[in-house]
């Protein structure tokens, strides 16, 4: 009896929800790879994948057909656009559409945050976020006083060449709206294709850590780290001022039925426990708790090494959400957070890129013996972006291993 696509999708979604609710699903849910491998498998360049939506949809269709992970981040390509969402946080219908900036949107804005293939970097390079310093140290007071106003009226003009004058800005925002409308059709197309193949649409929205907004979009990562030492009170007040706008923006995803809010965390690895507990965590925690009150579980991607801060997760209420780890020892994290937090991660990308199918199977078998008991676990690559020349048999080996041992 083969299952219908609808049954398959329901099964996969139930698997995810069971893990998120700290239960033991029928099988360990498997979160898949994406990245350069998707256009490479379809034989198109990263430039085509970023700029030709029709081809991008077909590439994604082929990839999820060939490699049926339960879920993946395979979608239209884009880079972090949270600063734009915050700038528009008083206009939920617009804010909700600005979380990711695509290649065509990057062209329209003429921004300095991103590097896209076929534009600043070569046609087969991955799109990359570079950020920068777009606010001076003596402007913290302006940010503290009116974060949304300062970002939308002062910072964005510096970031985007095509917002330099009011007249240019008029044209740019209209063009951006048209582009959002155009891309929405293709995003819908990915949804339709996924459903036909038995993949669920995960009800995912977004969140962000306040200090990361300052590090990624306003001051630059190296600079914000120095600011913490030089102007601790200013940084703290600015971080606090950003809590409310981020909550407003995160709640816009309720309109589209989101039940989870995905936060990529960046500065967590940079900070000692002392600094993390003073400048980063309290404000992030406020957002997580507020979203939980609104019925949204947070889905945090702890980039890099989070070992030094693991214990702080226990300050959150049981069942608050999902902790996705990149390089933290996943077995240690699972032991500590068992019965409290759904833990996700576990597959090093180096192994998928450079290992053999047998090594991959053996690794996953051993890992699952440790982390599967008791449920509340989602297996995922530490970082989901697979290089273009990742051996395809290695990707299949991941899926087979979960079939066997999950």
């Amino acid at each position, binding site marked *: 009896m083969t299952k219908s696509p609808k049954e398959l999708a329901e099964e996969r979604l139930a698997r995810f929800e069971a893990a998120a609710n700290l239960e033991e699903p029928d099988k360990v849910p498997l979160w898949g790879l994406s990245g350069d491998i998707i256009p490479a498998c379809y034989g198109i360049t990263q430039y085509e994948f970023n700029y030709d939506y029709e081809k991008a949809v077909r590439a994604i269709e082929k990839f999820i057909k060939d490699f049926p992970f339960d879920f993946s981040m395979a979608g239209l390509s884009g880079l972090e656009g949270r600063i734009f969402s915050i700038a528009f946080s008083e206009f939920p219908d617009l804010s909700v559409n600005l979380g990711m900036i695509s290649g065509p949107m990057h062209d329209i804005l003429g921004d300095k945050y991103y590097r896209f293939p076929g534009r600043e970097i070569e046609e087969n*390079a991955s799109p990359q976020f*570079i950020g920068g310093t777009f606010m001076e140290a003596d402007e913290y007071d302006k940010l503290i006083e009116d974060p949304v106003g300062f970002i939308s009226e002062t910072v964005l003009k510096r970031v985007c060449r095509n917002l330099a004058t009011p007249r240019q800005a008029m044209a740019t925002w209209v063009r951006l709206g048209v582009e959002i409308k155009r891309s929405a059709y293709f995003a819908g197309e990915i949804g339709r294709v996924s459903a036909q193949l038995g993949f669920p649409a995960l009800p995912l929205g977004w969140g962000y850590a306040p200090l990361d907004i300052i590090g990624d979009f306003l001051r630059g990562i190296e600079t914000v*780290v120095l600011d913490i*030492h030089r102007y601790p009170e200013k940084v703290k007040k600015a971080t606090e001022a950003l809590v409310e706008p981020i909550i407003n923006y995160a709640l816009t995803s309720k309109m589209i039925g989101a039940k989870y809010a995905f936060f990529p965390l960046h500065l967590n*690895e*940079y900070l000692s426990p002392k600094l993390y507990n003073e400048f980063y965590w309290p404000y992030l925690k406020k957002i997580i708790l507020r979203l939980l009150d609104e019925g949204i579980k947070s889905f945090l991607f702890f980039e890099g090494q989070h070992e030094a801060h693991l214990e702080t997760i226990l300050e959150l209420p049981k069942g608050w959400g999902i902790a996705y780890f990149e390089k933290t020892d996943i077995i240690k994290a699972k032991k500590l957070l068992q019965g409290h937090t759904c833990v996700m991660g576990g597959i090093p990308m180096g*192994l998928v*890129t450079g290992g053999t199918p047998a090594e991959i199977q053996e690794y996953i078998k051993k890992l699952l013996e440790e982390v599967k008991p008791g449920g509340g676990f989602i297996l995922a690559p530490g*970082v989901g972006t697979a290089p273009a020349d990742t051996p395809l048999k290695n990707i299949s080996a991941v899926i087979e291993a979960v079939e066997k041992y999950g």
Partner: protein
Amino acid sequence: MQEELFNKIVDMDEEGSIKMAREYLESGGDPQKLLEVCRNAMGVIGDKFEKGEYFLSELILGGEIFGNIMKFTLPLIKGDTKKLGKIVLGTVKDDIHNIGKDIFKAFAEAAGFEVVDIGVNTPVEKFVEAAKTHKPDIVGMSCLITAGLSSMKKTVEALKAAGITNAKIIIGGGRVDEEVKQFVGADAWADDAAKGVRLCKELMGVEG
């Protein structure tokens, strides 16, 4: 002065340590001695990082303090200081990230290496050319994104094909590990700058 300045740097007192270094030189202090103190302090900051007492933010601040003091100290040092060895360093092709490379560079220079920085998104040919021109003891490749893994492999292959076999190759960055080292064909890997510098010393046969 020496012990007090050393402690100020290790304790991350940016303002205090820079002021003290300036005053020491203005009162006729020996710039060579000052360099030694700063280098030793950077060594301890690296050790503290490896022990888990310090984090990336302290490495960045340490590099900043060291760089600022060097700006007014190095011009006063007559002749060449003895170098541990030479490193050609770059972020590999198709990766435009510089943070990891820059932190490593600050600590490698503080440890006594001469570093030739060839930038980010560095084509394979540029690595080969720099290795031929500068004849380094070590070639350091940095990457943050996973796409960089393939670039590293291609760069190592190109260096070997060009007959550059004397230089040791170290790879560094958030996404590298033992598995990646083998895949790439490098001699050593580090996912943090402090470990990277320690391994470079070991590659040179110096106490790490």
